């Protein structure tokens, strides 16, 4: 192999390149952590969807986000059940309440009513069956284990919701939300607590399980005809979850904040990295000029600098990903919503590598000083 000048210089003078590597790494961490937190927090609005096991969701036409559901006509269930591909249908209620516990003062809570049967679809991922069946007892609720402190309660504790006494019989996992608190109860309990849902005909969503989940699109299409669309709308679970996340990303301003902070991170990263690379080029000007003297063409020197930039980017990115995984671990241990997916990692990786290469291109300007004739003055 030919002499790896770029890489050997990088290793030999690692102290010189360290600021660039760190700035690339921190830019990466900043973008990933921000993005994952944002997606995690915004994703909490889709928790009723993502923590349930339904293939299809049926709700009010034009619903923008899962947490903004409005009551639909109970007749929708009968219509869907006509389709032989639909295995079963189950209602899910979303209401609101005012929690008053030991601490005094009220806390706004979101009431989620699910079918309490052991194999119920609603929030099936958020609690074990043994806990779910406890809800069959009237006036019992589940609180997320991340919210116990916020509500100053514990399993076995009692409180009032909308003036009615409830008992906490267990906890859910991963239902901690951005705004209010998610309280899970049986359908009957939620109807009793939230008067607006009192009538048996009022249902926020119907959850459908299909015989074969592969048919979800086809079934959805069947019930998306204009006459049906006036009364209810059908989404696959992924659609409704995605719609909820997009709505909050775009409508809440949080997305704009993320974009702005990302631009700042990229700018700072580019600035520090290009300054570091420029200093490295400046320190090697006599050597580069000597190579020019013996006839090494300019593009070959440019390649050295860009290769160094590439290595700085790659090593910085590795640090950034490691830092992000650490952040994900800390978030997980503390029950903080943190959606570290491949999408945000790829986005950040691409941006960070682009930063390093852009910095390398900026540093190329310094190479112009590598004039061999200048060595002779």
């Amino acid at each position: 192999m030919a002499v790896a000048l770029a890489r050997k210089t990088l290793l030999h003078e690692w102290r010189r390149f360290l600021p660039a590597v760190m700035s690339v790494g921190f830019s990466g961490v900043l973008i990933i952590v921000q993005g994952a937190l944002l997606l995690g927090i915004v994703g909490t609005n889709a928790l009723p969807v993502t923590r349930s096991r339904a293939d299809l969701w049926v709700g009010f036409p034009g619903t923008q986000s899962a947490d903004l559901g409005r009551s639909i006509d109970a007749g929708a269930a009968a219509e869907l059940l006509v389709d032989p591909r639909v295995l079963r249908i189950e209602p899910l209620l979303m209401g609101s309440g005012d929690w008053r516990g030991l601490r005094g003062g009220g806390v706004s809570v979101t009431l989620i009513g699910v079918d309490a049967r052991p194999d119920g679809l609603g929030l099936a991922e958020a609690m074990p069956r043994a806990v779910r069946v406890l809800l069959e007892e009237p006036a019992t609720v589940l609180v997320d284990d991340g919210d116990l402190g916020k509500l100053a309660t514990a399993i076995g504790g009692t409180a009032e919701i909308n003036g009615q006494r409830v008992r906490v019989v267990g906890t859910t996992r991963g239902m901690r939300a951005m705004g209010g608190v998610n309280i899970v109860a049986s359908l009957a309990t939620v109807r009793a607590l939230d008067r607006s849902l009192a009538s048996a005909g009022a249902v926020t969503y119907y959850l459908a399980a299909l015989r074969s989940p592969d048919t979800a699109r086809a079934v959805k299409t069947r019930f998306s005809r204009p006459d049906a669309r006036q009364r209810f709308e059908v989404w696959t679970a992924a659609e409704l979850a995605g719609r909820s996340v997009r709505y909050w990303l775009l409508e809440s301003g949080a997305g704009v904040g993320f974009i702005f902070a990302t631009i700042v991170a990229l700018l700072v990263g580019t600035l520090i990295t290009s300054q570091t690379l420029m200093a490295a080029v400046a320190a090697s000007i006599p050597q580069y000029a000597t190579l020019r003297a013996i006839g090494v063409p300019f593009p070959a020197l440019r390649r050295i600098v860009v290769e160094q930039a590439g290595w700085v980017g790659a090593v910085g990115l590795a640090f950034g990903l490691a830092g992000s995984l650490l952040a994900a671990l800390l978030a997980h241990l503390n029950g903080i919503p943190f959606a570290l997916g491949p999408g945000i990692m790829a986005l950040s990786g691409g941006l960070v590598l682009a930063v390093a290469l852009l910095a390398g291109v900026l540093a190329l300007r310094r190479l112009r000083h590598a004039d061999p004739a200048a060595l002779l003055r």
Partner: protein
Amino acid sequence: MTAPTSLSASGLAKSYLVQSIRTQALADVSLTLRPGELSLISGPSGCGKSTLLSLMSGLSRPDSGEVHALGTDLGRLDDAGRDAFRLAHCGFVFQGFNLFPALDALEQVQLVLDYRGVPQDEARRGAASALEMVGLGHRSHLRPAELSGGEKQRVAIARAIVKRPRLLFADEPTSALDSVNGAIVTDLLREIAHRSGAIVVCVSHDPRLIARADRVIEMEDGRLRRDSHGAPAPSATEIHP
């Protein structure tokens, strides 16, 4: 067909604009250098000797006049053409060594052959034998920080000669060295000229070098003053412009 080893300049002139004052660095310099000789261009600072080296090696272009090297008119080549010419035929040794801190001696030398597209094994062998030639075969694994000034300049010479250039240019190669190392480097340059038949031209005001050069060309105020053979040369010819 290989052109004979030759390097000549005729009517060279070059001026620089420094802070809006034009300085005439060279005026009407004509010179023919002979192969197999260590030629020394000497003179006080600012006499134009480095400018002459720069023009004759194709590093820069004259305002007027011509440089013919190995049968090529350097003035007719564009930048890329002069790069290619230097890559093929020219070696350089500078006052400041200019070695890469990260590379060991062997790699410094091998790098030149890499850029010439020489295969890896051959490049390593060539680099090793160039280092042997300058007496550093046993030090080839060391980086510049681990070498003395004299050893660094010998690595730089090995780097300059590894591609067996027919034109070797050296700018003040001994001025940063003590007397022993200065003598070693001077003898090396002369030996290279004698053994390889290359044109070796050296710019220096180091009297130790003047004593060992085959030919001494003295400059003053951008013109040639004296051209003498052997040292100290009884056959000196005064040049009257």
